[in-house]
Each structure stands twice: as C-alpha cells, then as structure tokens.
C-alpha cells in the first residue's frame, strides 16, 4: 500500500465492509423468509398430533384447514412484501431477470384476484348445499322417523346430490334451453342446473382451470447463482400463490375446472416446496378420480356430504315404517355426522368467505404498492394522450 493512499484505502475498506454487512443482512433476511415459509407450510400439512380438543381437527382440505392455509398465505405475503419488495434497492427490479419476473408475478396476482372472486361465489353454492343437507338432517332427526320425513329428506338429498355431481359443461347447455320455457314443467333438475350456472361469476368463456394453467405455465424454477438473491424468493411467493389458488379451486366449486389436476408443477429442488409437492400429488390423484363422476370439488365436507347423502338416499329407498332398532341407530349416526358437518359449514364458511375477501384486498394493496415501486424506479410515466 503506497503511503499516500493510506487514508483513501482505509475509508474504502470501511465502506466495503459496511456494504458487506448490509449485504449479509439482506441475504440472511431472504433466507429467513424462505425458512419461515417452509416451516409454516410443513406445520400445516403435517399437523402436530396433540391438537386442542376444542378446535376441529384440521383434516386436509377441510374448511378449517383452508382457513389455516389462507392464514399462512397472508403471513407469507406480508413478509414477502416487507423483505423482498419494500426493503430493497429497487434498482434491482429493473435488471434482468427481475425485470421480467416481477411483472409476471404481478400478472399472476391479477388472475388470483379473479379466482378469489370465483371462490367467493363458490362458497355461496356450498352454503346452498348446506341448507339442503340441513333439511334432510332436520327431517331424519325426528323420533320416530315417519314416511313423510323420509320422503322429505330424500327429496332434499336428491336435489343436493344432483347439484353436487352435475357436470357443469354438458348439462348447463341443456338447462339453459329448458329455462326459456315457462310454466309448471320446470323441474328441480332444470333449476339446479340454472342455479349452478348462476353462481358463475364470469362470462361463460372464463375457466378457472385455464387461469391456473396460465399462472403456472411460466413458473420456472430459477437456476441459482443470481447475485441479488431475490429471484428465489419471488419464485417462492409465486409458487405459494399458485398453489393456494389451485388448492382452493380444486376444493370449492368453481367455473370450468377441466383438467385442473395436471395444471401445477412445482420444482422439487427447494425445501419449502416439499410439503406442497406432497399435497399436490395427492390432490392431483384425487382430482383425476373424481373428475369422471362430476366436479363437486375435493372439499372434505363436500365429499362427506356426498357419501352420507348417497347412503341416506339408499336408506330412504328401502324405508318402511317402522324402522328396526339397529337400522335406526345406524341412520341416527349418519344423520348426526351430517348434522355435525352442517354445523361446521355454518361456522366456517362465513369466516372463510371473509378471509378470501381479506386475501383479495391484501393482494390488491400489495399489487398497487409494488407497481408504485416499479414506476418509481422505471421513471415511467403514462404518455399524455393529446
């Protein structure tokens, strides 16, 4: 070191050191973020054995489970925004590859917002099913069960089952035709089909499945070795977003879901992806199985309602008054289970709807803030249209 340069290089060294410290802190923040996500997700997917008895058990894909999933997502999202977007030197966002990756992420958020809207409508349909199930429960809880009660329950259950298993694409075209005829001949069936299509939030051409596909088609795993360390977190956030949307669409009735099962592929290389991948495989398989029988969705409560409904209709078909004690007990157990599911739906669906709404609002806000940061850094202005 030449003697005259002493001062300069000393200061240089300090500032390099300071930058290094800041850099290390940033890197650590990013790693912490990924770790938190991994922890939360794995806790969700493999819940600890000793849950409180007062909380409903979080069966995978149940309403309670989804509420937790959304909670987890909201936490991740908040951390993502704080750590990756806001706390950064925004100049990184205009350099490759983030200059492409972040707008892609923002595009996914637009689709996610539409999916949230569709889900909110879908939850309304779930509430409708609950009401039908409730009729059956009320009639079959009478002691003793009379023929009238059984007929009543059967009618409600048939309506419920038809609605659950209706194949949206084929039947809705027929039903649309039926609905233009007026008069007393409109059957429950027609009404069911119409009601199903009325719960569609968007024009007929919109497809939840296609939206998910579009969201995940350009989601490619980063190759690593990228200096800012931001590419992986962005990929993480996008992946979690797509996963959550995909899971919700698979469970809750949504417009047009053909081929949903195959539309999500996550890269195996990251730890935080492991829990999601496990679940993704399970959902994918279940979806394929169910797709042939109609697309009610994989929500745990729906599945159980469907199974119970089928058993109870069977019972109703073979009913004769009075019912033998053994059979009565069997039926009582099934009805009790159905009643419990209704109770859970009552409690949980309203809250879930509000959570999805909260999710919607949060995504809107984060999107706006991210766009602000980008505009700021791009020095972008809208051209004046004179």
């Amino acid at each position: 070191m030449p003697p005259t340069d002493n001062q300069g290089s000393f200061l240089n060294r300090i500032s390099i050191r300071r930058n290094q410290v800041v850099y290390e802190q940033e890197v650590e923040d990013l790693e912490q973020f990924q770790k938190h996500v991994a922890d939360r997700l794995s806790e969700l997917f493999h819940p600890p054995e000793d849950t409180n008895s007062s909380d409903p058990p979080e069966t995978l894909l149940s309403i309670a489970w989804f509420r937790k999933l959304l909670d987890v997502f909201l936490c991740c999202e908040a951390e993502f925004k704080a750590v990756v977007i806001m706390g950064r030197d925004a100049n990184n966002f205009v350099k490759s590859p983030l200059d492409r990756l972040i707008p892609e992420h923002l595009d996914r958020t637009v689709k996610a917002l539409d999916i949230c809207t569709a889900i909110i409508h879908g939850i309304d349909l779930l509430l409708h099913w609950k009401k039908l199930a409730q009729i059956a429960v009320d009639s079959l809880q009478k002691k003793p069960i009379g023929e009238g009660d059984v007929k009543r329950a059967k009618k409600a259950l048939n309506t419920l089952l038809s609605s659950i298993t209706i194949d949206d694409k084929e039947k809705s075209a027929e039903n649309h035709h039926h609905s233009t005829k007026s008069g007393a001949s409109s059957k429950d069936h027609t009404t069911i089909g119409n009601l199903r299509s009325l719960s569609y939030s968007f024009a007929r051409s919109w497809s939840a499945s296609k939206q998910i596909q579009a969201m995940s088609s350009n989601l490619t795993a980063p190759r690593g070795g990228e200096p800012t360390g931001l590419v992986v977190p962005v990929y993480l956030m996008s992946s979690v977003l797509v996963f959550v949307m995909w899971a919700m669409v698979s469970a809750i009735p949504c417009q047009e879901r053909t081929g949903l099962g195959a539309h999500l592929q996550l890269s195996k290389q990251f730890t935080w992806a492991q829990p999601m991948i496990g679940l993704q495989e399970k959902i994918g398989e279940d979806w394929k199985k169910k797709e042939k029988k109609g697309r009610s969705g994989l929500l745990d409560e729906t599945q159980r309602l469907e199974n119970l409904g089928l058993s109870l209709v069977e019972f109703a078909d073979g009913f004769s008054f009075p019912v033998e004690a053994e059979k009565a007990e069997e039926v009582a157990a099934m009805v009790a289970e159905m009643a419990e599911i209704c109770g859970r739906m009552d409690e949980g669906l309203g809250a879930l709807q509000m959570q999805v709404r909260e999710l919607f609002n949060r995504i809107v806000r984060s999107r706006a803030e991210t766009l602000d940061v980008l505009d700021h850094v791009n020095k972008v202005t809208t051209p004046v249209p004179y």
Partner: protein
Amino acid sequence: MGSPETDRITPLEQAEQIILRWDSSKPHMIFNSDNRHDIDNYLSAVDLIQQSTNGKIAENNGQSTKVNTLVQIAMARLEDEFRNILISHTTLEFDSVNLLTESDEDSVNSNGSRISRNICEFDVIPKDHINDLRLIAKRMMMSGYFRECVQVYGGVRKIKLDTIFKKLGVEKLSLDDVQRLDWESLNAKISKYIKAVKICVRILFASKKRLCVQIFENLGYEGDEDAGDVCFMETVKSAAISLFDFAEAISISSRSPEKLFKIVDLHDTFIDLLPDIEDVFCSKSSESIRVQASEISSRLAEAARGMLYEFENSVLREPSRVLVPGGTIHPLTRYVMNYITLISNYKQTLGELIVSKPVTDSRYSDDLTMPDMDFGDHEGQSPLALHLIWIIVILQFNLDGKSKHYKDNALAYLFFMNNVHYIVQKVKGSPELREMIGDSFLKELTAKITQASTRYQRATWVGVLYCLRDEGLHATGSFSSGVPRNALRERFKSFNAMFEEVHKMQTLWSIPDTQLREEIQISISEKVIPAYRSFLGRFRTHIENGKHPEYYIKYSVEDLETAVLDFFEGCAVSQLSRRRSL
C-alpha cells in the same frame, strides 16, 4: 246433513282425501283454477292435517305416520303451487324495467310508489297472487317447511334477476378482461353500468325486498332473522355481489389519467347509492354487501387521487421534442387546460376527494429538474385549487424546456408567450377555474406573458434597430463632410436585409390570438417605425444625392407599416413590397 253412511267420514278423513287427490303426480295446479272453492278447500284440508299433528308426536302408531306422510305430500304440492304462481306472474316486472332503461331513470313510473328517498318500487306481482303466496307460505312455515319455501322462491327469482341483469347490460367481466379493454370500450361500459347499478339498487332490489316483505310479513322467524329477510338475501345476495364486482374491477384497474372523470362519476354514483344500499341490505346477514360497497367507494376515491397524481407526473415529464411550427399553441397546453377546466367543473366531488397538497419534491429522488413552488403564498386555498395551480406551474416548466429546442431564441420566447397567453385565456374563460386559481396567480401569469413578449422583441429587433442608430453617423458642421456616405449606405443595406429576413421568417410564425397579435404588431411598429422615419428624415437626402438611391432606400414608412401587419400570419406572405411612394 246427508245420510248417516256417507256422513261417517270425519272432517279429518275428508281432508286426507283432498290431499291425496292432489298429490304431486297431478299436473294441474289448484291455484290456477278460478275456483276459489277448490283452493279454500285444499288449504283448510292442510290446516286440519297440520293441527292433527299436534299431540300425536309421541304416538308411535299407524295414524301418526299417515299424518306424517300426508303433511309431506301436501307440502310437496304446495311447493309446486308456489313455484308455479311465481313463474306465471312475474312478466310485469320485465316490461316495467324496459321502460326505465329508455327513459330518465329518476322519474317514477306510474306503477311505482315512493318509499324512501330515491327508492322506487314496483308491484311486480298482482295483489291477489301475493295473497295466495302468503297463504301457501304460512302453511309451509307452520309445518316446518320454511327452508323448502325459501329454496323455491330463491330459485325462481334468481333466474329472473339474472335475465334482467342481462337486459340492463350488466356484464360479468373478470379483472383480466377489464385490464385488456381499450379506453373507449371501457368508457362506454362504465356509463352503461352507472345507469344499471342505480336501477338495480333503487328499483330492482328494493322491489324484490318489498315483495319478500309482502309475502312473508309476520309469518315468523328463521333463527334470529325475519323470514322475509332470509328470502330476500337468498334471492339477491350473489347477484348483488356480482353487480358490484364490475365496479371493483374498475377501481383496481390501471390508473391512466384519461379515466379520471369517469372514475369520479362512478365514485359519486356509489356514494349516492350507499344510503339506499344500507336501506335495502339492512339485515345482519347482508353486512358483507354493505362492506363491499363502501370498500369500493374508498378504492374508487383512491384511484381518482392516484390518477390526478399520475396526470401531474405525466405533464411534468412529457418528453416530446417535436417543435410546433411557428411557435404556436402546443397540443400539450390545449390538453392540459381542457383537463383542468374539466376538473374545475368536478370541483364538488374532487374537492372532497383531494385533501392533500401537491407533492412538489421530486418523485424521482435523484432528478433535479423540478420547478420550485412555495405554497406559502396560497394559504386559504383548497388543496384541489393548489393542485390546479401546481399543474399550471409544471405545464409552464415543461413548455419552457420545450422552447429551448427552438434554434432561434426569438421563436422560443414567442412560443412561450403564446402558450402562457392561452393558459390565461382559458382560465379567464372558466369562472370556476378562475375562482380556484385566484387573481394573484393570474397576475403572475400575465406578467410572464409580458416578459416573454419583451424578450422576443429584444431578441429580434435590437439588431435591426442597431442599423438605425445615430452613432458613427454624426454630421459635424457642413453637409459635405462628417456623414460617411458609404457607412450610411451600409446601414441602409443592412437594415433592409435584416428587415427582409425578419419579415420572411416571422410571417411564418404564429400568434393565434388576434388581440395579442395586434398588440405585438403595434408594439413592434412603435419601436421600428418612428426610428425609421427619423432615420429616413435625417439621411435620405445624403443617399438621394448619390448614385442609385433606390438600392439603399428601398422602403417607405408606409411600406414598413404594411409589412408589420404581415407578421405572425403563420403562413408565407408575398415578398415585401417595395416603396410605392417616396
């Protein structure tokens, strides 16, 4: 009283028979017949059966199970009857709504009646049929079949609602779709939507609610909610959410300034509708709808603010370097002044929405090109007014930057003068705008016009007038000595050349405002003409005494006076005419 044998049928058995006669397999409707007797009979039968279930609950015998079956049969039948009445008698609604979409939606149709404020309702189902529906609903509720009743009601009404929505042009667009639309289409859709949403809230939903009340009033409760409310929500909830989805999408979509006024319109619509929404959706279960509506209003307000901010930014940064020929009004000036005039027309709403002062430090922290502005002189003016002033300040700033691209300084000043003058004219032309901008700022602007004009004149004419200066041409003593003829000739020649040059160029320049043009022309004349006249007066004889005076004294004073009138025409004029009289 008939014979003992036939009268052995108890009223209860009679009722059974009636009910069994009308089981679900029969296609005809009881309530369709004009025979009130049939209807009354049936309903009495149902009542009887219903009464007989009380007290038989614990009995586990054949009688109670028969009754149980009969009740179910009766309820199934009543369900069908209920559905049928609803389906057959709701066409009225359709046409009424049709009428409204064509006419002014604020006028009350003769079928309607006012309930509160703006809410106007329709008798969509004739009273008789409403009564029948009530009769049926009562029986269903009393037998514990309320849920089925709600399902039927909701099922039919939702379909009708959907059809009406389509007629009103309420579209189900996703956010994705909305982002992709061009402004013209979006603008049209928003206008249509504003009309539709008013009709939906104030007429459609309100009348649906009234109908529910009419049918289910005082019939009881479902849980802790009034039966009518439950029915209403069943029918309308998801439709209402769908309806608001569009406004939501608009409030989220991209913020380009041209959307500002439409967004404000939409915002105003929602603010106006909020009390009506609270009225119609007053139950606990409809809270989410009220919340969504008010969230939408806030988002629209935010969007409006964002757009104003975006506008200010784009005016400041507008980068075009294309020079307007002849220094005339720049399209940016026109656009901005039109825009802020419109803002002043919207001052009522925008005044409420815009509550903070303009941001005058740079959005881009390392960018130093920002005008200086101290709002201290503008205490007591509303934030919106401050924004308008700020917009004018940054417009000027931008124009100033643009002017520097003209190669000729004089043209640069002319350009600036023209545009600031236009700004002032526009402000004066709109009373609202003028009131908000304030006269003191207006004075500042006017001073800038004068300053620019002075600079222009100096830039152009100093050189020309220099040719007519006395210096170096003094006659000392006698005629024949002192005045250097050659120098004099040079002077005349330079003056002519310069004036011709200026004439050639500056006839192509433009001052669009006639009054301003005259003023400038007069000002030029006042400087040039007397100087030329006196120069000519003093020195013409010297030239005329020499050879070819016409080479040097080309123009008379009148020629020049005429020539000045050519200036700033904005187009080429014929060459300067030579003196006609000397």
